[in-house]
Each structure stands twice: as C-alpha cells, then as structure tokens.
C-alpha cells in the first residue's frame, strides 16, 4: 500500500499556485527583497553601527565620511545609525500594531460572521459607529492619555523590577503607540473578515459539512478559516505601511516617539528644521521611509493578485 501511495502524484494547492504566481510578479518580488534588506539592516546591521545617541557637538553637520557614512546631525550624532535605529521603531510599530489589530479583527469578524443573526447585527453596529469616528483624532487622544502614564509606568517598573532606567523609559514611550494604533486599527479588518466568512458560509461545501454532521468548531477551523486567510493576509500586509505612516505623523506632531528614542518620523521632523542648509537630514530618512512603504505596498498588491482577492473597498 505504501509503495502505491508514494507513486500518487501530488496535487498543487491554492497556496502553491499563489506562490508560483507571486514569483512571477517582478514588482512584488522586488518589494520583498527591499523589505528583506531593510529588515536585516535595521535589525542585524544596526548592532555594528556607532552609538546613535552619542553626542559630539564638535563634529555636527559633518558630511559623509568613512566613520559617518551619512554624516552627522545637529548634535553630531551618526545619521546612518540613527536611521537604522529609527527604522527598528518604525518597523516594529507597523508590525506589532498590525499584529494587535489582526488578532482582534479576525476573532471579532469571524465570530460576528459565523454566529450571524442579532449578535452579528449588534457587533457590526458597534464597528460602524467606531468607524465613523475620525481615526487620527482618537489615536491622538488615546496616545496622549497613554503616554502620560508612561512616566509613572517607568518609575514603577524600575522600582519593582530593577530594569535599566533608560531602556524602560524607551519601552514605555513606544509601547502605548503599538496599542493606540492596534486597538483602533482592527475595525476595517474585522469587516473584511466578516464579509469573507459570510460568503464562505453560504458556499455549498460548508452546507455539505453540516449535512455530514460535522461539528461547528470543525467547520469553523477546517472549512471556513482556511478559506478566509487569503484576504486577511493581503489586507494585513497593506495595513503595515498605514501604521508606519501613522507613527510618523504622530511623531512629527510630537505625540509619538520621543527622544532619546528615534523613529523615521522623528528624524524627518528633526531634518525639516535644517532644511535650507542640510537637506540630506530630511531626505535620507525620508528615502528609507518611502522605500519601505513602497515595497510593502507592492508586496501587498502582489499578494492580492497572487491570491486572487477581489479589491476590497476600504
């Protein structure tokens, strides 16, 4: 029997087909490469860079040199190192906020769509109401509130756990941002997941599963969720650049990441101060920022085509 089985030709799953289509999409693959390089720069190469916070007022606004590849900023700090460390924060904000919103969005949307009826109507009313509230307004208010607690939180953590004070301060500065964005970003995703679940639920293979006496859990996890993963992945990918942008906006307004932390938004803001004389301080972080956003968007568009997801109206 085993011999016979091993000779059976392996079929090609939808994921496999999608991967093949994806590999043919030059824009998406290019995006993937850039993201990979950006990732390794920010999270691996950055460890070998000079200290991004080392102030050297004698050597401010230095131009490119062996020691400082991108030169130095107004306080004589190494710009390249600051961009890479800033990238860590920006990318992490994008990823973690997406993870938070995806986790909430999938569960909320799947439950709403799968249970249906009055529960569904009620849950979607809540989402509708929240969606009508201006996003940035809420983020700003929430972020302002959360970050005000961060000082106290730092004190508390340092006192009770004995963590390094500087590290804790950085952490408590950034963490509220993850949640402010993530807690509010799940709304659209939950709607997309719900719509998908509703349409899958109407498909005949789910009805066949009911007719075969499969349990609700089995149907949800083996038949519904595998079929809604595609659009979820696509939308999540397209959410990351959005969050990175929001982080930059908040930081630019002085409501997000604060010194000594840096992020691309912070760097662009600092660079804008020396616009007339030292334009590279604005352009270089802007370039890294835009390149990442470009790549993420191309990747998301490529995934959408490869997974054959209908354009969602978000």
């Amino acid at each position, binding site marked *: 029997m085993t011999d016979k089985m091993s000779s059976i*030709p392996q079929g090609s799953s939808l994921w496999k087909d999608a991967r093949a289509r994806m590999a043919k999409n030059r824009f998406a693959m290019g995006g993937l490469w850039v993201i990979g390089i950006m990732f390794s720069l920010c999270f691996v190469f950055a460890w070998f860079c000079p200290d991004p916070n080392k102030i050297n007022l004698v050597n401010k606004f230095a131009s490119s040199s062996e020691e400082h590849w991108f030169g130095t900023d107004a306080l004589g700090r190494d710009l390249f190192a600051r961009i890479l460390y800033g990238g860590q924060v920006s990318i992490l904000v994008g990823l973690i906020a997406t993870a938070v919103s995806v986790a909430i969005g999938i569960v909320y949307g799947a439950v709403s769509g799968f249970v249906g009826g009055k529960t569904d109507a009620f849950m979607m009313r809540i989402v509708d109401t929240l969606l009508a509230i201006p996003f940035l307004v809420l983020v700003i208010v929430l972020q302002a509130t959360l970050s005000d607690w961060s000082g106290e939180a730092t004190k508390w953590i340092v006192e009770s756990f004995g963590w390094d004070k500087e590290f804790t301060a950085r952490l408590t500065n950034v963490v509220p941002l993850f949640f402010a964005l993530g807690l509010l970003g799940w709304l659209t995703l939950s709607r997309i997941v719900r719509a998908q679940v509703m349409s899958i639920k109407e498909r005949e293979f789910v009805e066949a599963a009911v007719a075969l006496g499969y349990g609700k859990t089995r149907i949800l996890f083996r038949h519904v969720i595998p079929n809604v993963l595609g659009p979820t992945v696509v939308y999540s990918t397209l959410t990351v650049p959005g969050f990175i942008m929001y982080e930059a906006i908040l930081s630019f307004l002085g409501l997000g990441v604060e010194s000594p932390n840096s992020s691309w938004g912070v760097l662009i803001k600092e660079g804008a101060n020396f616009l007339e004389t030292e334009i590279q301080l604005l352009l270089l972080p802007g370039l890294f920022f835009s390149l990442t956003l470009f790549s993420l968007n191309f990747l998301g568009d490529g995934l959408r085509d490869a997974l054959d997801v209908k354009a969602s109206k978000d």
Partner: protein
Amino acid sequence: MSLLDVKNLKTYFHTRAGTTRAVDDVSFSIDKKEIVGVVGESGSGKSVTCHSMLGLLPQPPAKVEGGSVTFDGQELIGLPTSLLRAIRGKRISMVFQDPMSCLNPYLRIIDQVAEPILIHENASLEQAESRAIEMMKKVGIRDAEQRAHSYPHEFSGGMRQRVMIAMSLVTNPDLLLADEPTTALDVTVQARILEILRELRDDLGVAVLFVTHDLGVVANIADRVVVMYKGKIVEQGTVCDIFQNPSHPYVKGLLACRPSLDTKYRILPTVDDFLKTEDQADGSTTLGERPDAMERLAKLQEEEILDDPVEKPLETLLEVNDLGVHFHSGGGFLGKPPETVIAVDKVNLTIPKGKTLGLVGESGCGKTTLGRAILRLQQTCRGSVQYDGRELIGLTQADMLEYRKRMQIIFQDPYASLNPRQTIEQTLIEPLLVHKIGANRGQRRDRVVSLLEEVGLGAEFLLRYPHEFSGGQRQRISVARALAVEPEFVVCDECVSAMDVSVQAQVLNLLRELQGKRNLTYLFISHDLSVVKFMSDDIAVMKQGRIEEFGKANEVYENPQSDYTRELLEAVPRADF
C-alpha cells in the same frame, strides 16, 4: 448570394499556457431571413465564432488567425474598427446570454434601447425614443411607455431579455447574433422568447444566428443547424437531416445521450458509446466512429424499462407533512419594514424506499428550500418530517448525528461544493473520521480508494485539489463524499444542471447505477423536466412554495392534472420529427 459567409475562420487564444484553437477552420453561411442554429457543448467554440465576426473578443489573448467573414459582400475580418462600429448595432446586432448582467444598471431602459438609433441614424431624441417604445411593445413589454423610464433591476429576467431583443432590433438590422439568449431563463419564459424571435423574423425579415447548447431549442427554432465540437464543425444541415439522420458519431452521441420526455432507456447512451477520439502527435485530435456503436446501443435498448406487472407493497422511507418554511427580512430597528416570504407552503410528500421522487419547478418555486428543510439544513416553521418512522423536526444536534449519516445531499455547483483548500483524500476521509468509520488510517484510506473507484475515478487523484478537476469529475467526487457515510437517502439538488449533456448523461448513469447497487432512495430536484422524467418513479411539481401535482411519473407526464404542469410540459422544446 448568402447574407453572411464564414469561410475557414480560425480564432486562436494565445496565453502563457499555450495556444488554444478555439475556432479551427469553420465555414458556414446564413441566408436572408434564415435562422441558423449553432450547437455545441461548452468549449466548442460556438460563442467565440459569434464574437469573432464583430471583433468583440478581447485581443490579446484572442486573435483571428485566418479565414474570412463576408457580410452582404463586405469583408468583416480586418475591417478597421471605426468601419466595423458602423455595422455593429446597425446591420448586425447581438443578444447575449445573461440578461441580468448585459444591461447597464446605471442607465434607464429607454436610454439603452434608443441608443443604437442615436448612434447610427440621424434621428432626434424624440423620434428615437418613440421608435424604441414601439419596438418594446413589439417584443411584448406591456405599458412600455411607463416602464421604459425605469432601470433594469426593476425588470424580471424574461423582461430584460425582451429589452435586449428590442434594443438589438430597433435599428432594423439584417442579422441578429443571439448567443445563448434563453439559457438563463425558465422554460416557460424561454418558450415565449423563442416565439417572439420567430415572429420578429417573419415581421422584420431579420436573419438569426442562434447559438445554444440545447438541442431541443435548436430543433424548435432553427431552419438549419451547425454542430460544433472542439472548435470544429462536425456536421451541418437542415434540422430534419441532423435530427433524423445524423451521420457524425459525435452528433449521434449528442442526440442519444440527451434524455427527452420520451426516453425509455434505463441507462443513457453517452457520447463515448459512439465517438472514438485519438490524440495525434501534433496536438490535434482525430474523431472516429466506434465500430461497435450499434451493438452498444442495442444492449442499452434491451435494458428498456419494463413496467413491473406486479406492484409490490412499498415501504415508506420519508414522509413530509404540512411542512412550511418562511423567510423573514427587515424589521430591524429603523430598518426596512418586516416582510415574510413563504418559501415552502404546507407541503405533503412521501418517498418509498429504493425509489426516486422527482421534484420539478421553475426558479424561485422553493424546491431547493424544501430539499434543505427535509435535511434540516433549513429552519422550518411548521409541519413534520418523518424519516423511517422517526420525527426529525426538533431532534437535538446529537440525536440528529445518526440521521446525518443516513441522509445526504449532492449540490448543483461542483465548483462550490468542494472545499478548495483540501485534497480529495482529506475531503473524503473527513466524514469517515467524524462518524468513526474505519479502525485506522490504512482502512480509511482503502475505503476512500474504493469509493473513488465506485464513482469512476482512480487512486491517482487522491492528493489533488478540486481546482485541478473538470466539473463532471468534481461532481463525481461530491457523490463519493456523500456516499462515504453509507447513506440510504440522497437529495440531489439540481446536481446535473450546470453540466453539458454528455457529462450529464454520465453522472445520471452513475446515480442510477449506485441506486441499483446500494438500494438508494433519491429526492431528485431539477428544473429540467426531461431529466426528472428520466430519473424518477414519482413526480412532484412545485409552484410558489406549493405542490401543484404529485403522482406516478408516467401518469403526470402523460396525463397532467393541473394547468401549470400542462404549461410546463408544453414549454419543453422537443426534438421530434
């Protein structure tokens, strides 16, 4: 000279996967005022032929590789688009299959019907509109003046197709290309549309190229018939010739495999009984006749249905009493006012063990809902369903599990009825796992293989995914899945409706064969009266949620009691000469 002359037309599709010869060396002609039917199964190239003439195919991937289309002395192939546009809608018009999607939802009916006049003739808006309304009256749209100002979504399917016809004939063209114009319609509506087309041909003197997959329709409307198969014309001639003395084995097969109201076979002949295809080295296929075709047919004829002289007392398996299903919509807080639609209205039915009950009706009559309600896939609001003496309505989910094993369902759309993310093996093993059939992995696998073989597929397909199969194969897999739990009763919900006749014959034969082998009881739901007649012992005719007529199949067909049944039967296009 004929009105339209197609000579050696070749249209190929060039895609990354390779070149498909959609239309391969096709020649035929149409005379003035003639109705020519082009018949073929899906992928035969009949629609592509039609679209090639007016340059309506998306290019790329499509490309007309050769041949000529001469219309009234003018060559159409290679004609600049600007000149072709002057012919489109003015001298040659088209009607498409799906009237739901072929009218612009954003424009009023009158704007769309009058548009060809405004484009092609030097007419004022008032003239155009009054002519449009006149034409709409001609195709049988009542209150045309008022209704002309509404939007397409306010019209029913049949009415929209009339609008399409009015729109295409409003400029008085010489030729009408009708691409499956009645396929999406109910049979009674289809009958009326065909009647209108015939009348307009006589009235306006328009020639019609009628593309369809339905042999009955062609026999009904056409003067001459062109039969296409895999991009080629296999036979053409007058309707009488083709239907009475087909010479090509494919045509013979096609005519024989289609169940008609008069079919007496127990097993349908299939195209494969007649046609032998051989793949050639250069990628083309040669068609030949099976030498043993006549013997095969004779053998089938021997198995003709003989009425059982002795009626054995039958054991009732399923009894439906006073069943009702209501749909509620709206009624939310500040939403739409609440509405109730009665989908199934006090239905009574009985099905004896080992027999087939055919349930026929037009779209929206509630037949599918009834089938689902019997299996408790649909909430009911009144009545009872007794299966093997036990009441199913009100059973808990745990108690119902036993009956989920005994009652199964096969759906219409083989593309939607298999989970695209599971291999065939996973799909077929899952029911065994849930119902704890088979002691271990090996045993279950053996069972899956034997199930596949039973439906005519092999073990080599086990690890494939649904999208790698054709529609007919997928339906076989659906059948295998339903049979995996060894049911006694199977609901077949329009399970051959989406198929070509040749595939349909195979699946019907499979269902028949399985019924004999496993002593299955079927509830066979379909809109196609011929298919239901072929499959069923008893028949129930459904209309607007009610059972109009219920009785022995032969009696209902030969001596219908209700007006509605009679109307349905008369509307079925027949191919008898």
